[in-house]
């Protein structure tokens, strides 16, 4: 019987079957579950690296040492890893090297909607694009074979819908892979100009060979039906094509880069009209046009968001959608459920304090980015991992120090270790007066609780060395390093006020574990209780937007004892002493 696997789990299964020895990754939705699933195979060395650049470098080292190696990241992670990516194209591999990159069309959980296929073109690397879980496994296996055959790193591009869909997989046979002998090869592995000049020529030649090989080795599927309409497509878009356009002839690409140009030209000759269906950017379309193959694409179909069968019917076939039994127009609109900080979230109190201080806040990537929206509205910027620290310094210099008296950078523990540390070093070195708040919740929260170098556990939850954040910031040169409890909003306000006024770089570590880390304290008997006689229905507690505390029909707050974790934030904001922590006398 087949297994039902997430696309991400199937990637891990493919890596296991391919005999992968080393996987190093940094978590990022929608790629995170690949490395988590791989960690269940004991034979594979799996690790969380502090960032994607380090992760890819680990994988390159493992590959050159002779083992099959893999790294997995989300699209924006590949930007961080782009430096080693481009030059690993020149060094080539010893053991197979595969880089998994998961794009997020529709931005379910991302700060941009970039199309990572551009990296394949730019770094001159082959790229596979699976369309379901079975292909995730099979194309990872094919990617390792291609990597060793052509002496190249290979990209496998996923999208959220493939990563997070479960589908049947016939598990592949396990290939035993011995670690290949290591050979010192300065001309191939030391990329300085004299050697790199020769390697660039080899890379160009390899790309031509890959293009020629693609027609037979690219795992393409050609399905000839009607001659009226032909579709060239790949990945998840191919599934919507088959759904919406059952009569069309379809050339479904497996290897999306480099294209099998001659095979596509033959296909084009068999149809009256040729349309390229690809989510996001016109990568395939542009290349086909450059090769002189007439086709349509983005003139008909949007470069924005995810596609669907319905979208293709509307824009390509004009076929009507199925009729809904309960059309939207006939129903009242349902109030939205935007994401909010959890009950007991340590970030909530911190942002309440920042909001009261009316500071400029340069923000960063994590759950705490929610501080930018209601109820605190206490964040001015969010660009990329680690940006908060450098941006606060830039604001300081742009205003000759004026902004540093009313600006803080806010960054999580994992994000700080990812790429905030180098920003701190820069701020110190270049005599900044900026203030940096590290929100240390003892976990990588947003992606679903992964360990990091500060948590004291590795990916398999074994004990691991934990970096001492205070010592780290001191040794990087911070003039002041203080620790506060973010639930104590008054203390936060006081310490932040003092530190923004201080010259030199200040670091404040707001330390309290994520509310979703089980502590045993979140029991109903520890929930906050209401003293109705004292409550004046002022709604101060309602305004903190805690999911465990809502306004009842009579205006009194209602506390859900199953959701409340007893953090006491609402108790602190109540001026009438009407809310009591669990265990206190009402």
């Amino acid at each position, binding site marked *: 019987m087949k297994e039902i696997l997430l696309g991400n789990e199937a990637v891990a299964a493919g890596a296991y079957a391919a005999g992968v020895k080393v996987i190093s990754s940094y978590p990022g939705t929608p790629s995170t579950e690949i490395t988590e699933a791989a960690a269940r195979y004991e034979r594979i060395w799996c690790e969380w690296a502090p960032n994607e650049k380090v992760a890819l470098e680990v994988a390159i080292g493992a590959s050159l040492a002779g083992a099959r190696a893999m790294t997995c990241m989300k699209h924006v992670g590949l930007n961080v890893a782009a430096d080693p990516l481009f030059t690993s194209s020149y060094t080539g591999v010893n053991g197979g090297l595969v880089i998994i990159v998961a794009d997020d069309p529709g931005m379910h959980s991302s700060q941009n909607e970039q199309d990572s296929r551009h990296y394949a073109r730019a770094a001159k690397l082959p790229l596979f694009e699976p369309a379901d879980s079975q292909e995730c496994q099979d194309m990872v296996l094919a990617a390792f074979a291609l990597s060793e055959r052509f002496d190249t790193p290979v990209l496998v591009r996923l999208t959220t819908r493939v990563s997070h869909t*479960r589908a049947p997989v016939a598990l592949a046979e396990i290939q035993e892979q011995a670690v290949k002998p290591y050979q010192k090869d300065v001309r191939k592995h030391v990329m300085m100009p004299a050697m790199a000049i020769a390697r660039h020529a080899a890379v160009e030649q390899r790309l031509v060979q890959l293009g020629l090989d693609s027609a037979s080795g690219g795992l393409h599927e050609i399905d000839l039906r009607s001659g009226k309409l032909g579709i060239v497509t790949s990945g998840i878009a191919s599934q919507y094509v088959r759904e919406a356009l059952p009569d069309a002839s379809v050339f479904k690409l497996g290897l999306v880069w480099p294209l099998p140009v001659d095979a596509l030209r033959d296909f084009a000759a068999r149809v009256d009209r040729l349309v390229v269906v690809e989510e996001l950017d016109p990568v395939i379309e542009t290349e086909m046009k450059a090769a002189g193959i007439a086709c349509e694409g983005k003139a008909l179909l949007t470069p924005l968001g995810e596609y669907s069968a319905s979208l293709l019917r509307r824009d390509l076939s004009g076929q009507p959608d199925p*009729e*809904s039994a309960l059309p939207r127009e006939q129903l009242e609109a349902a109030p*939205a459920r935007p994401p909010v900080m*959890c009950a007991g979230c340590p970030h909530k109190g911190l942002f309440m304090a920042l909001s009261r201080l009316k500071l400029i806040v340069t923000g960063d990537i994590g759950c705490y980015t929610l501080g930018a929206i209601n109820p605190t509205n206490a964040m001015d910027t969010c660009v990329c991992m680690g940006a908060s620290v450098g941006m606060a310094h830039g604001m300081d210099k742009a205003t000759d120090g004026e902004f540093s008296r009313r600006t803080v950078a806010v960054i999580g523990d994992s994000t700080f270790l990812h790429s905030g540390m180098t920003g701190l070093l820069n701020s110190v070195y270049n005599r900044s007066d900026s203030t940096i708040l590290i929100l240390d919740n003892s976990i990588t929260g947003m992606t679903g609780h992964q360990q990091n170098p500060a948590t004291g556990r590795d990916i398999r939850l074994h004990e691991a060395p934990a970096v001492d954040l205070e010592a780290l910031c001191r040794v990087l040169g911070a003039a002041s390093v203080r620790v506060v409890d973010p639930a104590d909003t008054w203390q936060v306000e006081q310490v932040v006020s003092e530190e923004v006024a201080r010259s030199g770089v200040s670091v404040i570590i707001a330390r309290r574990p994520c509310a979703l880390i089980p502590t045993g304290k979140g029991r109903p008997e520890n929930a906050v209780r209401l003293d109705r006689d004292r409550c004046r229905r002022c709604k101060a507690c309602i305004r903190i937007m805690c999911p465990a505390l809502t306004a009842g029909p009579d205006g009194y707050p209602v506390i859900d004892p199953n959701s409340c974790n007893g953090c006491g934030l609402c108790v602190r904001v109540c001026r009438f002493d009407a809310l009591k922590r669990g265990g206190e006398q009402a």
Partner: protein
Amino acid sequence: MISKLDLVLAGVGGQGTLVAGKLLGRVALKAGLDVRVSEVHGMAQRGGSVITYVRMAPNVHSPVVEPGQADFVLAFEQLEALRWAHLLARDGVLLMNMSRVIPMSVGMGQARYPDAVAAALQQAGDGRAVIRALDATRLAREAGSEKAVNIVMLGAMAHFLDIAPDVFTEAIDDVFPLKLQGINQKAFQAGFAIMKENTGA
């Protein structure tokens, strides 16, 4: 035996839609069908609206159930029924748990939780769909845990399906650890039985 089924599981983070989707994947395999279970991760623990699409057929392509396509909408609370009702196909079945999870905007008094959702759905359906409300949360509690509300909903759906019940009961044992199997088997039976009572069948 069924040959094709498109359904959506609509709930709020933490209500068990992901586990229910996983279980239906097992059901499809046992029924000899291809299957896709499409999940939305990331915001699941943060009080967000969570939807899982399940499609089974001899060959499934798109993992997404689109408007007017769902044979079943299983809504784990009332507001989510309203939000995703438009996915229901003509002659489809919408099963709604009567519980309410109050969204933040309503909790803060900025929006209103719609009342009489079941009646509104009946009226909009105008005989083109089967709409049934049940107190799945109570049935789950009686079976041993409120967390089994997802399995009560699957039991209710199974009443309408031509799938041998032991396909579901085997899948429950596949998906849950031993100590939770009893509760979930009971929850499944409770959901199945309540639909029988209501139809008088």
